[in-house]
């Protein structure tokens, strides 16, 4: 599956281990959350970069003990209309996670901009859509009314811009 990051298809440098495979010589690996919790003693000493794959219902508070040592968190989008991972991603960023956040699952270009805005860096996407499709979709709306979002496409944060002392916006017409 192509990996989309910063509007380009890139190679995935990570190895995604299932629950039974030993790490061997890999330098970057992800494990399931269950394995992370079960084998934390060993994994905490992993010399390379460690990541975790989350199934949707995980409470991000359960991740707090591990957050500072994770370089990658993969959040799942089992169906494109299942929006839980948007909140998971946002919570992880609000909790201070600074590593890479990756989306995996059934993703349409029409969702890319939303995913970027909640702090997702990379997406495992299907080959159905071209790079142009993804690039175009990632910058379709140039504004955001919400504050505190990630604005990879340079979206303008409307409320903040309205209130940074631009005199043009201070004269407001009255009703009627």
């Amino acid at each position, binding site marked *: 599956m192509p990996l989309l990051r910063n509007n380009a298809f890139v190679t995935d440098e990570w190895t995604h281990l299932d629950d039974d495979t030993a790490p061997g010589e890999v330098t970057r690996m992800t494990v399931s959350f269950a394995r992370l919790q079960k084998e934390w003693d060993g994994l905490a000493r992993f010399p390379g970069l460690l990541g975790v794959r989350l199934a949707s219902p995980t409470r991000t*508070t359960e991740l707090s003990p591990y957050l500072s040592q994770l370089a990658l968190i993969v959040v799942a989008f089992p169906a*494109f*209309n*299942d*929006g*839980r991972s*948007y*909140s*998971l991603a*946002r*919570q992880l960023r*609000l*909790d201070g996670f600074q590593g890479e956040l990756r989306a995996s699952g059934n993703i*349409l270009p*029409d969702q890319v*901009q*939303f*995913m970027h*805005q*909640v702090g997702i860096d990379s997406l495992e996407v299907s080959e159905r859509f071209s790079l142009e499709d993804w690039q175009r979709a990632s910058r*379709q*709306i*140039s*504004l*955001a*009314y*919400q*504050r*505190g*979002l990630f604005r990879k496409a340079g979206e*303008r944060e*409307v*409320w*903040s*811009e*309205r*209130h940074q002392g631009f005199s043009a*916006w201070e004269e*407001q*017409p*009255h*009703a*009627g």
Partner: protein
Amino acid sequence: MYRYDEFDHQFVRERTAQFRDQAARRLKGELTEDEFRPLRLMNGLYLQLHAYMLRVAIPYGTLSSRQMRQLGLIADKWDRGYGHFTTRQNIQYNWFKLEDTADILQALADVEMHAIQTSGNCIRNVTTDHWAGAAADELLDPRPVGELIRQWSSLHPEFSFLPRKFKIAVTGAPNDRAAVKVHDIGLRLHRNAAGVPGWEVMVGGGQGRTPMIAVTVREHLPEKELIAYLEAIMRVYNLYGRRDNKYKARVKILVHEIGAEKFRSEVEAEYARHPAQTTEVEERELARIAKYFADPAFERLSRFVPVFEAEKRSNAEFARWVKNNTAAHKREGYAIVNISLKAAGEIPGDCTSEQMRVMADLAESHSFAELRVSHAQNIVLPHVRLGDLFAIWQKLTEHGLAAANYGLAGDIIACPGLDYCALATARSIPVAQAISRKFADLDRQQDIGNIKINISGCINACGHHHVGHIGILGLDKKGEEYYQITLGGSSSEHASIGTILGPGFAGHEVPDAIDTILNTYVRLRAPREEFLATYRRIGAQPFKEALYATA
């Protein structure tokens, strides 16, 4: 009322372009229907029984004359010359084509309107008191916050794929005309003991299959914390709302299943973890928006207008219309005009493009170019001088808009039902028409007094029958339409869900059943006691006996 600045204009422009692109990709087959459906729903476009239906947003039920005229133009140009005003203060058109929709959205954008998020599993139109900014009993106008929430919820990246739809209502008056207690989030603006304005935040109300009254999560939330707090609520719902069963996916089910206490603690935990950082920008934005809702240039008028008094004395029909269809305004010499879209025997909430233009013109001349849409599918002119009422009434009469039945038995609220809606199990409009014809006598309607009759054509309850004083629910029994009657619902601050009276009725039996119910009320009421009060006093039993007693 709110006016778009360059940001708002750009936003709807880009959203329209995005939809144009999505529709084109769908028609070319680059998106399947399953993929396109949530995207088109987020732009209010349904596929209904006869054609595509578009639900246009009328934020907090407020629109200008210019916008009303454009709604008429859209009806003429792309539909069949009429529209339908809904129980959530929006307007629906029933005969659109997918290939025209982007152009229609452009025509809306040209007058600062849109259809963004009027459907889909996202935050829908914020509704409010249709008398906001005009009502005599209002403490604070809730519409600035309605606009703030509208913007904040527009294309919110985190909350665009919720378990299910999400509806927010706001009120700023002690008499709640916004039904806040039966919304996913209800917000009541009030002052605490120290006189500080703040929000009572209620969550988990709703109708549909499992009607419920909202629980209070916060008694008094400071205004500036509102957005951050709403985010906490939405995040909890988005994460933990059920996604396994469409009929159990609303937030009311979550609140019910985990309990109000647990829900409250989840929200507070989320809010504590991610509290409002600085709120200065939100506060300034709210203040900026509030300027648009400042009072219009009211004149200094006397409460007593001799010409008006004389007109009432000399024209009984006019006097009746004034009595039934006008409401007390906060300013002396002004009134709120309620235009009933329920002429006897007509389709509730439907309005021709010509009628839209007439109302737009009247608003322009007599109501500071502003109109409102009510939850009862009627139109309001919020600020009218008493001296202008007669001329307005005459004009309304010419165009079939002067039915003097506002809030009375003829003012029936009905969803489109099986005549239009793909989800319906029975027709609702013919039932409404038959009841309306039966009660056409205005003297009788006035004697009965204030009564809310709500009809839904299926258990999704878009007619809000659960909170009707008399609710009628259309069902299907072995291929035949049949109707269940409930009594005692209310969407006020003393909200209640109606209770089923007994076995259902065939369509043609319903008007007589309503007749029996209202006759029973008249027979048993205390002096000046309104229907709901009588029902709450005597209970369902007398009505059941009257309805189901064997002859």
